[in-house]
């Protein structure tokens, strides 16, 4: 094949690039379906990329490091939940604050624990633990980094579970908080839970970006480079469906990978534009698909009231009668 784009290397690169974006997209998608607009996606990725690298350095095991990265993703998602729901920042403000805060905190810890210039895993790779066989073309399918398969598995699992009872519960929260509450669904715990799962998925992407792709952690402000937000765009372009979002991820990754295939100096710099322009064109031209009806909306006051009641707070007196409401637990 003389076309430089239709090579095994190119598609290997596409898959490697698609994986972090894909994880980000799937995490955002799960959140979206539960009504949470995950603007903090890059903050979570940044944190898990950093702790993925740091964990690898500490434990000297790339897989343990990866797990530490994922765990930090969960932790950050819970902080995000506290800010958006408990501090009532709302998804956008809380997400932006986590995004900016993650840049500051990882930058500080990087300099504090390692050095200003960056930390590195020292060339360790998240390679497939099974031997290569059958040549490059077979390897493209069967000898990828394990997380590539994990991403696809998560996409399929999400696709299936959105139709299960759990999925219905999550979707009800995203489509109509009122209907969900009338069915006795507790919105706040549900959102925290969804955030935790999403945090783990997005954390996989961040940690993979750190230990699997880059191998180093340099400038926090440019480390993720908008890949989390591209993931968010994939959700929109993929009409809030897991498999379509994954397909969208592959398209954007293909655009992303082009810049590494063109060796001409004049062009390669400008080719960095390609993924962003493709994403912009995609979300601007496709507007027929609608997201969950209440995506990104603040919780209703009733959800907080229910949560306060369960925490044992008694409603205040209003007028003359003594309040005896509340289940008092």
């Amino acid at each position, binding site marked *: 094949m003389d076309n430089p784009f239709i090579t095994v290397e190119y598609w290997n690169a596409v898959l490697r690039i698609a994986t972090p974006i894909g994880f980000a997209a799937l995490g955002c998608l799960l959140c979206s379906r539960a009504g949470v607009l995950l603007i903090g996606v890059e903050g979570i990725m940044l944190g898990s990329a950093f702790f993925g690298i740091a964990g690898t350095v500490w434990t000297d095991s790339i897989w343990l490091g990866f797990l530490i990265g994922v765990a930090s993703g969960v932790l950050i998602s819970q902080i995000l939940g506290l800010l958006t729901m408990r501090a009532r920042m709302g998804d956008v403000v809380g997400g932006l604050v986590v995004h900016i805060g993650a840049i500051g905190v990882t930058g500080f810890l990087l300099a504090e624990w390692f050095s200003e210039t960056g930390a590195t895993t020292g060339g360790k790779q998240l390679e497939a633990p099974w031997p290569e066989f059958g040549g490059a073309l077979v390897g493209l399918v069967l000898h990828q980094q394990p997380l590539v398969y994990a991403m696809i598995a998560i996409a399929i699992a999400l696709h299936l579970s959105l*139709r*299960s*009872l759990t999925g*219905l*519960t999550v*979707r*009800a929260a995203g*489509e*109509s908080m*009122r*209907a*969900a*509450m*009338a*069915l*006795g669904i507790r919105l706040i715990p549900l959102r925290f839970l969804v955030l935790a799962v999403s945090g783990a998925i997005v954390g996989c992407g961040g940690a993979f970006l750190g230990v699997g792709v880059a191998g180093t952690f340099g400038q926090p402000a440019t480390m993720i480079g908008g890949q989390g937000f591209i993931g968010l765009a994939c959700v929109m372009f993929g009409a809030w469906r897991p498999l379509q979002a994954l397909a969208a991820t592959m398209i954007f990754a293909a655009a992303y990978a082009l810049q590494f295939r063109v060796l001409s100096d004049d062009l390669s710099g400008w080719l960095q534009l390609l993924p962003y322009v493709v994403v912009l064109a995609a979300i601007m031209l496709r507007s027929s698909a609608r997201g*969950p*009806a209440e995506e990104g909306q603040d919780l209703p006051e*009733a959800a907080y*009231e*229910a949560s306060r*009641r369960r925490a044992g707070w008694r*409603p205040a*007196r*209003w*007028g003359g*009668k*003594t*309040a*005896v*409401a*509340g*289940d008092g637990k």
Partner: protein
Amino acid sequence: MPEVRHDRAASRVLTAEAITKRFGHVEANNDVSFSLRSAEVHALLGQNGAGKSTLVGILSGSVVPDGGRVCVDGEAIALGSPQASNDAGIATVYQDLVLVPTMTGLENIALALRRAPNAATRDEIAASAAEFELPVNINTPVGALGLPERQRIELLRALCQRPAFLLLDEPTSLLPPLMVETFLGKVRELADRQLAVLLITHRLDEARLIADRVTILRDGQVVAEFDRDALPPNEDVARLIVGQDVAASAAEHHAREHTVLAVADLVVSTDGRAVVNGVSLGVKAGEIVGIAGVDGNGQRELMEAIAGLRAIESGTVAVEGNQIQGQSYADCWSAGVQFVSEDRRREGIVPTYSIAEHFSITPGRFEPAKVRAILERYDVRPPDPKFRADQLSGGNQQKMLMARACEAGARVLLVAYPTQGLDVQATVRIRDILIEQAASGIGIVVTSSDLDELLAISQRVVVMSRGQLVGAQHHGAFDKRELAEWIIRGPGGFAHATPDLART
């Protein structure tokens, strides 16, 4: 009717004891006590704002009362927990249906049953649907279904939970009149199967038809309770419900010859469906035209389209002879078309803004000094332009919004459900305002699902059904039965039978 589950469900009783609930200054429920027993239909009667829906909310666990107890078979249940109410055997069909629109009937019901939406669940739902004779399509997203079918799904959802107590909040308000009787028959049948049914309604005839007991709620308090046999004549019950006679505002004939609004062959579509389908309507200066019909038959869309708040597919709208179709609401406003929505909180009030600020954000030029005079004239309390509008009561908000529309140089005033959720005094005042405004030469279009209200204030009542106007009657020749018939039969029965619609 065979009492199939008599053995299983031994007679059970749901009691509410001294329920109290306030919203701000409004006492929605004040010391409300009543009981509901198996195998009875207990009708809870009251007008809008009497506190019926609040009580349903409390029983079903979605509203937390300030005081009182809810007991099932003598045992108090946890309040404010939909789960607890559900576990106690209470199932609810809400007035404004709470189904998830993007999910299918199967998914909605499975969610409520906490079951996976698989084939087994589908079969079971189908079996229940057959058992209760509720024909439903459970494979289409409910948002794409008509309101009656959505309501059947919600009813089926409640019945699939095999409740002991079934709460129906204004179940007939969404149904075309023809289906009301069938539906009530179904409800009666459910009670005969040992179910305890609470039927919330503001319509006495429905209660009379199927209820074993009737409790009347007014201003948040129980004012009377009757057994079926002891139910007094209609006039007496009506007085109990309303408390005082709503002044039958005499709609004098102020209509002049001059036509202010002329709508011709108007078509409005949403999602490819014509929700307003070739409507022609003329309104004269000084005339109040009431648009009757079941909610969701295009009344709202018609109003919005006239006002420029909704895109028009074809047809013309002319005010004082000038065509305004296709213009923005701002332009229509300047041309003299004002629209007052019934959803004050969502579409009327800007949080934190004062009354004066609500006037100054419109294109009309309101001098601050004049606003106070306007507020006094329209009886807005307090008539203080600096008062925050979101802290006004619902009735005063409505008066303020009406004042804003009328005083902006209205030629045509469009009002949707003018008295929805208002107390009696505010209702009277709002109706008076409408009649005064008409007298001053404005053409007014009012839509409401309350036929009596329209008959009280309108010079002409037209019936809208499935996006079309199907009949008209003039003041002095109102025939409520015929109007109801038109509402039932819809456009099919009256094709081309209403020549006077377009011209007047």
